[in-house]
């Protein structure tokens, strides 16, 4: 009896799921008709999304959502999500788009369609202006600080020539202290860490030398909504050309938008 109950509930829910998908065949038209764009945004991940002192959500992702809604000429409805529930929100149609600093990977690509990249998110080597470095080979005879055992440590250790000294520190704070106190003039870390330095000590912020591992952020769209993806891509492309993304990057990440993104 229990088994039958379970079976019937599975059948029922699967049917419902399929019907739901069938109804929302063309999301773009739906959005334009209802005049509302529902976007999943983070609220616990500054500078991409957090709650400001006025209790309103703010951040790179929120501004990106505002830009898209404005371009589509519809009203914006922000839906706060966590990184764990953002894809379920999209799959169940609670939101139209996920703009939640989401990176691409094969598992996600099976369940979500991705737009073009709209925000940089990478591990790289950063340093003072006086260090003319643009690739791993040029780190020869130089000293780079990094947090021991981190992904950037592993990547860096693979890439650099033998004559490079890698100073490994116990945690991110020590690595940053080493840079800020001038003990090392180059460090390998994530771009958000650099944003944090740039926000607090604008004159001491290191500049990007080269990337170690690139995992930019994409807008997530429900699987199969090709027209919506095409429209978002068109808007992202024009945002790149109009300098909108450059402005967002400068505002929230305190760094230029990478030209190759």
């Amino acid at each position, binding site marked *: 009896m229990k088994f039958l109950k379970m079976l019937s509930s599975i059948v029922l829910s699967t049917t419902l799921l399929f019907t739901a998908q069938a109804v929302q065949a063309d999301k773009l038209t739906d959005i334009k008709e209802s005049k509302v764009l529902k976007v999943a945004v983070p609220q616990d991940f500054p500078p991409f999304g957090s709650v400001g002192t006025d209790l309103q959500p703010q951040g790179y992702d929120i501004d990106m959502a505002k830009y898209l809604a404005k371009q589509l000429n519809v009203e914006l409805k922000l839906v706060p999500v966590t990184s764990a529930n953002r894809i379920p929100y999209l799959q169940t149609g609670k939101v139209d788009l996920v703009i939640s600093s989401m990176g691409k990977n094969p598992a996600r690509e099976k369940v979500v369609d991705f737009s073009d990249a709209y925000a940089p998110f990478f591990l790289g080597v950063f340093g003072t202006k006086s260090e003319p470095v643009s690739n791993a080979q040029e780190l020869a005879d130089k000293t780079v600080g990094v947090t021991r*055992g981190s992904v950037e440590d592993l990547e860096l250790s693979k890439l650099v020539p033998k004559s490079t000294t890698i*100073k490994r520190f*116990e945690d991110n704070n*020590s690595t940053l*202290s*080493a840079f800020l106190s*001038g*003990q090392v003039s180059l460090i390998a870390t994530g771009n958000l860490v650099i944003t944090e330095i740039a926000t607090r000590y604008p004159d001491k912020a290191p500049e990007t030398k080269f990337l170690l591992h690139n995992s930019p952020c994409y807008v997530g769209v429900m699987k199969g909504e090709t027209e919506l993806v095409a429209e978002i891509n068109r808007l992202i492309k024009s945002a790149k050309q109009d300098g909108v993304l450059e402005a967002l990057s400068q505002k929230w990440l305190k760094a230029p938008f990478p030209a190759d993104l």
Partner: protein
Amino acid sequence: MSYQLDFTNLIPYLPQFAAGLWTTVELTLISTFGGLLLGTLCAQGRISQEAWLRTCCSCYVEVIRNTPFIVQLFFIFFGLPALGFKLSAWQAGTIAMIINLGAYSTEIIRAGIDAAPKGQWEAGQTLGLTRRQVFWHIILPPAYQRVYPAIVSQCIIVMLGSAVVSQISVEELTFSANFIQSRTFLSFESYMIAALVYLLLAILMRQTFALIKRITFKNPSL
């Protein structure tokens, strides 16, 4: 409790352990010599007739003995560059260890000096020796001999304390163990080796100090 020890994967990292061990030995040797020298001079300073010198030495001892070693280390490595003194991690580590041992050994040696009978000072001065000569030739050798076990222990504590300088990226034994652990995830094995090496080093140090004692100190009554 079904952990399988796996030392074979650590074999490629043995040179790194050896390099770390050498750095630890180097740090220990330099800081032991430097620290004991500093301690002896400060002990002399603490019984000096000049009030300012006594105050300076006791301030130094109090400041160092009442602050954590890691804070002293971070102060030298991360703090001093703000004033323009930029030291490499190795230099900062060595200096911190010398300063630390210096303060502790000052107190130990001073205890030995205090135990010297007042008559020895007076006898020396009666014979026409200066205060400094009395200190170096008459008071200090037996003072050292009296507090020798305490000094040995303190030097070993400093050797073990050198593990802390791994925090500022000095690549000594603990740093090697941390590094190898983060690459192989064999934490039990890595730290087991590190612990054994420290134990052997400490025993070796005690033996060496015992040997030095047998050669140097000739007064069996103390």
